[in-house]
């Protein structure tokens, strides 16, 4: 029953997106457009997407193993929270969630479409095309409501697309994926990424609509600014959660491995970051209009590249690409999007863009250009590193992998340049920046940065890149603090009140500065945690202790137990100060084995103010234990920096300007 309703809902959503395209396009080209005509298909699409999602959740909660998706991703012993998260644990289910997020986006965008709003209606039609693709995918090759018609050895052997047939159900499912149910973060991380990925559909649709309609100016940008920033913030947050999960669960002692799956999320994020910055230049100065179109097309295309890379199996081996049904379809969709958008760009972009000249490279526009150049080159480098092995293998050449030094070598200079631009740009005037204006604003911060660098050297940091990143990171933060103090002089009220007023006066600018502080903190923390990390392998007998990096680690003994959904084999360790007397905490790295392999080793981490003490099991513990011990400086700062960067994006979108100011600006616009 749930399968039947679910599949019908998907088919209805597919039909609704088709109707939406036709109606939105007709109204956009009608003599008297009537935006209310698109309301019904939007609501039908949204409600059927929601029904499909709820049916999938219901099937998982009720242990309806006649659905092959449910039996492959859940079991009777799976805890409820991971049953719920199981709805987006694998390809078919994650596309259902994707479709729901997309339908919500279409709904919110359609609410902003006024009655004779041709640009908005055209954009809705474009979003309808994107929706049609995703719902069509669900209705065909990625149907999550496939039912089981024949059992082979207790598992589902034969499936049917049609839910009306006679179905059989395995007694129990295989269970949620061990890596997924090992940590709550893995349940939150994918939806965040999807909101990020899907969110870029809005600016893309408006950009395409502006080109189709030949509408000059920045209306499409203005109207989609909030969606771009929200999508950017969610994508960043999703990556941060993924990194955190990797650190807390995978036990290899890192948070970012330049894995193609990670790069798949980083690529659209980098280009979107470039877009958000160059969009400011277009809104303020009318420049870079064609470039913004390219960036938004690239961002949207890269979200599909990311989905393609992670979902088609191409990363594992090009040869598994042909074995998956969605791979070729996603690749086809990608090609259609890229070719048609670029063709449209070549044909119509001259109608949309006019390019005022850059007055001087020494201006805020100039710094924005540097930012864009660095970010796009960085994206190109990551793209090459990710795609090179895929292309080489596809040509029948060798199987290769690109090792981390390639990325690290590119990232370090990129980080220097970006931080430099971040420190100088926000205090540089538009049009022409005279040194006499800029210099006083950055002189003190430079000194502060250098002092911080000297301090780092004094406390024993000898890695040149780490010291340079500290200097630049502190310089960025000091510049922003200086600017805050400078501008505070113009605002009335006591300190906290005045800061609140100032930050709300221009949420776009200050939200950006908050993000910059976050990025600077993140850069320092990444440099410290990777450049100054300590890694050791330690073997201990019961009761024995070892000294690692100023700590004393004592092996208390093994500790195994059975939990409802898993078998836990752990080693209890006592972390003490260098004297082996004062206890700092107890650590228990474990192996978790679930019904389905592989067993997952979960490290145990003690987070301190200056560093993390990280222990993972290297072998099954017994009378003696083999441990991987790592010490990462400033890890908490890394997560905090990432959160601040995301918070800046949220501030830029949601901070409400003071009533008085909004009215004043409205008058200005009306006039």
């Amino acid at each position, binding site marked *: 029953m749930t399968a039947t309703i679910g599949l019908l809902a998907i088919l209805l959503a597919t039909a609704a997106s088709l109707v939406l395209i036709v109606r939105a396009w007709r109204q956009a080209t009608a003599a008297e457009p009537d935006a209310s005509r698109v309301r019904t298909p939007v609501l039908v699409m949204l409600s059927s997407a929601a029904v499909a999602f709820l049916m999938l959740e219901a099937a998982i909660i009720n242990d309806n193993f006649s659905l092959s998706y449910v039996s492959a991703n859940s079991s009777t012993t799976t805890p409820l929270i991971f049953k719920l998260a199981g709805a987006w*644990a*694998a390809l078919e289910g994650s596309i259902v969630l994707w479709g729901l997020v997309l339908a919500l986006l279409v709904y919110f965008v359609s609410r902003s479409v006024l009655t004779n709003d041709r640009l908005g209606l055209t954009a809705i039609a474009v979003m309808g095309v994107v929706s049609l693709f995703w719902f069509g995918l669900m209705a065909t090759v990625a149907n999550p409501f496939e039912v089981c018609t024949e059992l082979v050895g207790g598992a589902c052997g034969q499936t049917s697309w049609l839910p009306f047939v006679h179905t059989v159900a395995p007694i129990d499912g295989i269970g949620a*994926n*061990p*890596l*997924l149910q090992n940590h709550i973060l893995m349940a939150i991380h994918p939806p965040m990424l999807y909101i990020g990925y899907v969110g870029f559909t809005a600016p893309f649709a408006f950009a395409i609509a502006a080109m189709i309609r030949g509408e000059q100016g920045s209306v499409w940008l203005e109207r989609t600014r909030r969606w771009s920033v929200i999508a950017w913030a969610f994508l960043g947050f999703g990556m941060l959660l993924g990194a955190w999960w990797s650190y807390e669960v*995978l*036990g*290899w002692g890192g948070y970012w*491995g330049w*894995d193609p*799956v990670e790069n798949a999320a980083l690529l659209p994020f980098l280009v979107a970051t470039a877009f958000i910055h160059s969009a400011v230049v277009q809104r303020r100065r009318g420049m870079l209009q064609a470039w913004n179109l390219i960036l938004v097309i690239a961002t949207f295309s890269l979200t599909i590249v990311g989905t393609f890379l*992670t*979902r088609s*199996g191409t*990363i*594992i*081996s090009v*040869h*598994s690409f042909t074995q998956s049904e969605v791979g070729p379809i996603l690749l086809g969709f990608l090609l259609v999007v890229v070719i048609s958008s670029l063709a449209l760009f070549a044909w119509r972009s001259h109608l949309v863009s006019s390019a005022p000249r850059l007055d001087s490279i020494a201006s805020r526009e100039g710094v924005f250009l540097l930012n864009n150049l660095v970010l796009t*080159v960085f994206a*190109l*480098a990551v793209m*090459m*590193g990710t795609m*090179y092995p895929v292309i080489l293998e596809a040509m029948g050449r*060798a*199987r*290769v*992998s*690109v*090792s981390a*030094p*390639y990325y690290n*070598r*590119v990232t370090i200079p990129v980080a220097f340049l970006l931080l430099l631009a971040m420190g100088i740009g926000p205090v540089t005037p538009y049009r022409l920046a005279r040194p006499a204006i800029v210099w006083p604003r950055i002189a003190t911060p430079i000194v502060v940065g250098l002092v911080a660098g000297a301090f780092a050297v004094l406390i024993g940091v000898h890695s040149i890149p780490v010291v340079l990143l500290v200097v630049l990171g502190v310089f960025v933060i000091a510049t922003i603090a200086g600017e805050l103090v400078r501008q505070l002089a113009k605002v009335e009220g006591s300190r906290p009140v005045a800061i609140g007023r100032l930050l709300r006066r221009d949420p776009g600018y200050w939200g950006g500065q908050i993000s910059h502080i976050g990025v600077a903190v993140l850069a320092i923390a990444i440099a410290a945690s990777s450049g100054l990390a300590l890694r050791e*392998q330690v073997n201990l007998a019961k009761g024995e202790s070892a000294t690692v990096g100023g700590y004393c680690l004592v092996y208390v003994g093994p500790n195994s137990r059975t939990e409802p959904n898993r078998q836990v084999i752990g080693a209890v360790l006592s972390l003490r100060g260098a004297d082996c007397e004062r206890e700092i905490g107890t650590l228990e790295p474990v*192996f978790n084995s679930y019904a389905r392999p*592989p*067993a997952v*080793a979960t490290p145990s981490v003690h987070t301190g103010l200056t560093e993390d003490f990280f222990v*993972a*099991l*290297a*072998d099954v513990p017994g009378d003696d234990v083999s441990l*991987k011990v790592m010490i990462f400086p400033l890890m908490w700062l890394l997560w905090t920096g990432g959160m601040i960067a995301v918070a800046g994006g949220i501030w830029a979108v949601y901070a409400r300007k003071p009533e008085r100011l909004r009215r004043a600006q409205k008058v200005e616009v009306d006039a």
Partner: protein
Amino acid sequence: MIRRYWKFLVPAVLLLGVIAVLLVNLSNNLVYFHTPTELHHEVAPSADRLRLGGQVVAGTVTTEGNTLFLTVTDGRETLDVIHSGVVPQLFDEGQGVIVEGTWDGSKFHSDTMLIRHDEQYRTEDNEIYDTINHELEES
């Protein structure tokens, strides 16, 4: 006219330069992946870093201090591996592994053993081994 050409030529040359630098960097950091059969017959011993993928032959794993001795197979031929370094938690006999290191013509000296995740949340080495098996069956 000349100014118009410059407008496109300068960025194009810069872009090509950037790509060239990236490609050089890329080719310096490539690690080739081989099966035991390929190493025996196609790959000359050298100091270059390589990756070797295969299944751990049951009963071949012994340890001596922090050094691990194992034999891997691709279903056709076997190869002895001397691994010094961290051993991932998931390591077990009969399982697929990827090791990274150098090939001296008779043994593989590795210092890195890989367990990575893919979007299917499975360990990648199993996947790759499945793929290798698949290819062997086809050939």
